[in-house]
């Protein structure tokens, strides 16, 4: 059966794409952010995942408001990035894993998570940038499965539902008849708000507590409603539900391998955490 080696959650600000394209990693502004990654690269070199299941949210590239699935999953041979309108460079396509995609679809719908299945799916910066950050020299052998959660149009899935969805993803991966090693990635957050008079809102205290609880007690997050999370972390900070789903997939106890937290990257509190299953 397939094995989950661990999980990584990381921020996905579009401007990271420009920083990578212009090699600004050691620039004073970007250094505290990019310096968080080498320990995670070393861990990935050690655990050598074959597949990454990436829990993220689309920002109006693949999905518009005409059809907005709460949970969607890719089932394609390949995932392409495309012009998102804000001038960040487009990156090369990522390889899919249709066998795992269909195993997840079968298992999750059997477990009563009725997600939308996508045999074609464009992936935006929220999927591509974390992979670029985690494998700066592109691992061409890495296969991927995108899992997209709606954080655009409310109502969003509740934290309780996301955690349960993640746990079901984890069980499904572990029942996959394959010797693949799987890493589960969650992207977005942490606290930030782009819109309104409260633009620029950041909540360091909550973010740090969230990162700690994610490791030790992810059920802690389910005490909050989505509206609570908007109030505590901002209108886009609520993307941290992607972290929660990814954490759910890791099951019970995990060990934090590395964490990093830096304010600000663009308008965002940038977080990174790598967790190993124990």
């Amino acid at each position, binding site marked *: 059966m397939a094995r989950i080696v661990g999980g990584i959650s990381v921020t996905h600000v579009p401007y990271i794409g420009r920083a990578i394209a212009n090699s600004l990693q050691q620039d004073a502004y970007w250094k505290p952010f990019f310096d968080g990654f080498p320990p995670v690269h070393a861990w990935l070199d050690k655990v050598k995942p074959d597949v990454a299941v990436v829990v993220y949210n689309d920002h109006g590239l693949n999905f518009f408001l005409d059809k907005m699935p709460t949970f969607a999953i890719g089932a394609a041979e390949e995932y392409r990035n495309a012009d998102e309108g804000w001038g960040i460079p487009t990156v090369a396509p990522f390889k899919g894993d249709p066998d795992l995609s269909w195993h997840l679809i079968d298992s999750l719908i059997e477990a009563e998570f009725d997600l939308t299945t996508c045999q074609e799916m464009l992936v935006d910066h929220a999927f591509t940038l974390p992979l670029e950050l985690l494998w700066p020299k592109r691992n061409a052998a890495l296969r991927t499965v995108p899992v997209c959660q709606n954080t655009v149009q409310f109502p969003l899935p509740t934290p309780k539902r996301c955690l349960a969805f993640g746990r079901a993803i984890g069980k499904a991966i572990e029942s996959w008849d394959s010797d693949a090693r799987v890493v589960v990635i969650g992207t977005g957050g942490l606290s930030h708000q782009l*819109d309104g008079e409260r633009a620029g809102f950041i909540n360091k205290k909550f973010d740090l507590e969230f990162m700690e609880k994610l490791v030790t007690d992810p059920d802690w997050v389910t005490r909050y409603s989505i509206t609570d999370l908007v109030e505590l972390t901002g209108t886009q900070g609520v993307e941290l539900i992607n972290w929660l789903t990814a954490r759910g997939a890791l099951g019970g106890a995990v060990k934090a391998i590395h964490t990093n937290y830096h304010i600000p990257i663009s308008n965002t509190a940038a977080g990174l955490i790598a967790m190993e299953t124990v």
Partner: protein
Amino acid sequence: MASKSKRVIPGTTIFDGDMARKGYALNKMCYSFNSEENRQAFLADREGYCARFGLNAEQTKAVLDLSVLAMLAAGGNAYFIAKLGGIYKLDMQDVGAQQTGMTKAEFQAKLVAAGKN
């Protein structure tokens, strides 16, 4: 529309069903800006482009004025408005400064300060 009591978070709009209905045309226009050809068509005739997507007078004025708060009030969603901002090469600190009535430098200082405590 049935009236529902909604929780208010100051300075914050929840993009719910009411806003999604109100802003549909505006957001659909902004979604079209994923294409360079459409971005150029917009710049060539901004008012005509708004009309093609059926924006109402409030939405059209907000777009022509490039007023982010007015676009939000007219049902615009932050992720889609950002695509319009991209046409004018506005970054998120420009957009944040505009909405909070600060200079860009003041807005950036506020972000940096959030990391210090």
